[in-house]
């Protein structure tokens, strides 16, 4: 095989994702529409919810905070799953999926932290009280940052993928332990006044907007994720082409 011949082998390595590109290509517009509908209707209903007797209008931050927190956990689960697939199956798409989900997950975590802090301000009087759940999310945020940093620190893409996969799997085991330990810790220090950020979620008038927003966030995450995966695949193809022009 000639030098040129070898180079095309690299690109055809990625030919499999062609199917992914086709399918994702037609999913994305529909998904975008669905996301807009879900979030739009969720916000609409959220604004029409009557003020809570305890928290007033600030309870509405919950509709932004809770779905963000859930999506951030979902993203980490997705990364762990993709990492496992990548290690076991060695499919390059799994690695790309894990890598691209991380900044999204980190952003949703940051959103959850900020909105959680804002939500707590009127109740607690300060922006941060080391509430058990927020603290767990703070640690999760650092896990995300470490994961992203590891991807960026290792130059060889293949090796970076495997290292990040190991970290994600270790992290997923650890994050369960962290959650438990933070809960334990917060009862040790604040036995009396743990204000659960959950709030009163029983009335149906709260549930509908919440579910819509949760669905909308999930759809948004998948939408952005698919877009990022496509971009990454194209970037790799471009790099492969460039390398063989030299």
């Amino acid at each position, binding site marked *: 095989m000639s030098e040129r011949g070898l180079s095309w082998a690299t690109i055809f390595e990625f030919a499999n994702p062609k199917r992914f590109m086709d399918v994702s290509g037609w999913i994305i517009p529909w998904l975008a529409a669905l996301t807009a509908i879900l979030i739009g209707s969720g916000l609409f209903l959220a604004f029409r919810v009557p003020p809570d007797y305890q928290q007033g209008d600030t309870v509405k931050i919950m509709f932004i905070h809770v779905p963000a927190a859930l999506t951030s956990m979902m993203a980490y689960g997705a990364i762990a799953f993709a990492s496992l697939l990548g290690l076991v199956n060695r499919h390059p798409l799994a690695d790309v999926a894990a890598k691209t989900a991380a900044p999204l997950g980190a952003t949703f975590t940051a959103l959850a932290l900020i909105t959680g802090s804002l939500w707590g301000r009127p109740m607690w009087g300060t922006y941060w009280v080391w509430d058990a759940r927020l603290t767990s999310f703070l640690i999760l945020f650092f896990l995300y940052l470490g994961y992203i940093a590891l991807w960026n620190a290792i130059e060889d893409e293949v*090796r970076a993928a495997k290292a990040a996969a190991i970290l994600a799997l270790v992290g997923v085991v650890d994050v369960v332990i962290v959650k438990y330990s933070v809960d334990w810790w917060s009862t040790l220090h604040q036995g009396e006044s743990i204000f659960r950020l959950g709030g009163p979620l029983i009335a149906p008038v709260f549930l509908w907007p919440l579910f819509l927003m949760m669905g909308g966030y999930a759809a948004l995450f998948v939408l952005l994720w698919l877009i990022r995966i496509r971009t990454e695949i194209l970037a790799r193809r471009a790099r492969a082409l460039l390398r063989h022009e030299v």
Partner: protein
Amino acid sequence: MTALSGLDIEALSLWRGERMLFCDLALSVGAGEALKLEGPNGSGKTSLLRAIAGFLEPRAGTIRVRTNNGEQFAGGEERAEFVGWLGHQDGAKSQLTPLEALSFYARYYGSTACVEEVLQLVGLSRLGDLPAQYLSAGQKRRLALARLSLSARPLWLLDEPLASLDASGKALVAELVAQHCKDGGLAVIATHEPLGFEGPRLTLGNGQT
């Protein structure tokens, strides 16, 4: 030293990251043979040696060692116990003296060889108690040779063994390799320079087929 009857490589395809080094490589080395590996820098000599040693997973193909008992080992970590490695770096810990380093390796590899004798063999007897950071590059290379011969492994993989050695050092390498082959060992040696004896050779170039 468990005796090997041969090393066989078939249809080997090796990649570094996203770059292919070579594909469909085949070679065979029998007991008592020393194969010289040649080729320009970047052609994959070191990677091939690392693949044989089991550090680097090949993309395709098999690397197999055959023992005199008729057993075969094709897995990377299984081959490790047969490999005597001499890489680019000397593996010398700067805070340890040659005597300490060799005693460690003797104990670690389970060798019964006498450490002082091996030091004498490579000409470092006088320097046995000097921490390695004070040794010259050539002396560290001799220490590495001492360690190699101590390990009593049948398959020697040498990556540029003659680097930083003077004429007597190079003669020492040739002697050690010759003795090793006479004792029934095998060697694969990547080098630019002449080894001082004739033998089979393999050239890696651009796109080996």
